[in-house]
């Protein structure tokens, strides 16, 4: 995975190349030709495998219901492309309510926060509820605690927010954000604990990886 920090890489990342499907390359010729082709293909296979990032979603409920979703980034991008085609948000706005939030204002706000550097943006204490939004070491963190029962932790690299807000004038660039999320490597994105129910989303460069907690 290219981890270059150049500005162009931040905004426009090349698509992950498809993994080699060596099984479909199996020749019908003799064993010697097959072995030769296998030797030629072997060095390329690990490199391709490394480039595939996966988004993992795991939901566990107290009644023993467990759902694990493991999605390669390419598939998530396709899903987002489809979702974009069905979005009904007014251009230039995002969210719900009275017309949502103007994206231009959101970008201005993010730019202002960007210039501040690492800090706590917001901290709210209301009874047994504690919420904090901060940035530390290039990551935006949102933490919510409610009475010791509910605990929400969301964290993402700042560059993902850059990518999200850096696309088309009228739309959030979800696909650029997801590509950037994948580029930044293995990390936790969301962890929700509500009683015995847990929801966890993380990025890993291999299928079935447990993520870096």
């Amino acid at each position: 995975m290219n981890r270059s920090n150049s500005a162009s890489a931040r905004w426009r990342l090349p698509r992950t190349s498809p993994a080699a499907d060596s099984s479909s390359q199996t020749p019908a010729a003799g064993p010697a030709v097959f072995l030769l082709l296998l030797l030629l293909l072997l060095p390329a296979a690990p490199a391709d495998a490394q480039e595939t990032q996966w988004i993992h979603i795991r939901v566990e409920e107290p009644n023993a219901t467990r759902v694990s979703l493991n999605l390669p980034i390419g598939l998530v991008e396709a899903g987002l492309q489809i979702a974009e085609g069905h979005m009904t948000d007014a251009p230039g706005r995002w969210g719900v309510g009275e017309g949502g939030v103007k994206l231009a204002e959101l970008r201005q706000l993010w730019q202002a926060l960007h210039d501040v550097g690492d800090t706590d943006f917001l901290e709210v204490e209301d009874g047994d509820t504690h919420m904090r939004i901060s940035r530390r070491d290039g990551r935006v963190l949102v933490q919510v605690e409610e009475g010791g029962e509910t605990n929400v932790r969301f964290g993402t690299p700042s560059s993902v927010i850059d990518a999200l807000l850096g696309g088309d004038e009228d739309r959030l660039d979800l696909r650029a954000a997801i590509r950037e999320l994948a580029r930044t490597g293995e990390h936790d994105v969301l962890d929700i604990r509500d009683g015995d129910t847990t929801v966890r989303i993380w990025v890993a460069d291999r299928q079935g990886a447990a993520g870096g907690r």
Partner: protein
Amino acid sequence: MRRLLAGSVLALLGILVLVGFLGGFSVLVLRASWEEGRTLVVPVPAVLAGAGLALAPRLELSDVAPYHRDLGRVLAALEDTPDGLYLEAHGEGREHVTVEKRDRALLVRVTESPGVSVEFTLPLATLAAFLRAYDLEAGAVAPRRLLPALRGVPRGPLLHLTEGDVEIRVGVWRPW
């Protein structure tokens, strides 16, 4: 249980129709076994099934039209994504569902309880061929348009249904 059976029957019918359009030397093999080890094996040469189904009326599938483009995008993405376990769900009881991509096909396994399960294979090439054969304007598929496209259905198991003593397997056999 009824849903599982109904889904299985539908999947079986769908597979029978699809594989029926195969040409060449492919043989659709249906193997059913039930209590006391009784077994029935029905090999159906695909060329025979295809000839019969070529005369079938076109399939009206207008519900597919709004999703045709989206399905194409998902299939194109799936062609490029690596093999692996994409979904695994455990229910309250012993229900267990998995969706796996392997060898350019989606493998779906549903276990409702010990001894009651269904597994089926959806080759991506076959699904893509179906989308190509789909007439967007008419909202239908002419069966004969599927004939050349569906010759690529890979050999191997397509459906495996188990319920107690009853077991049904459907697969494609090909000499190469």
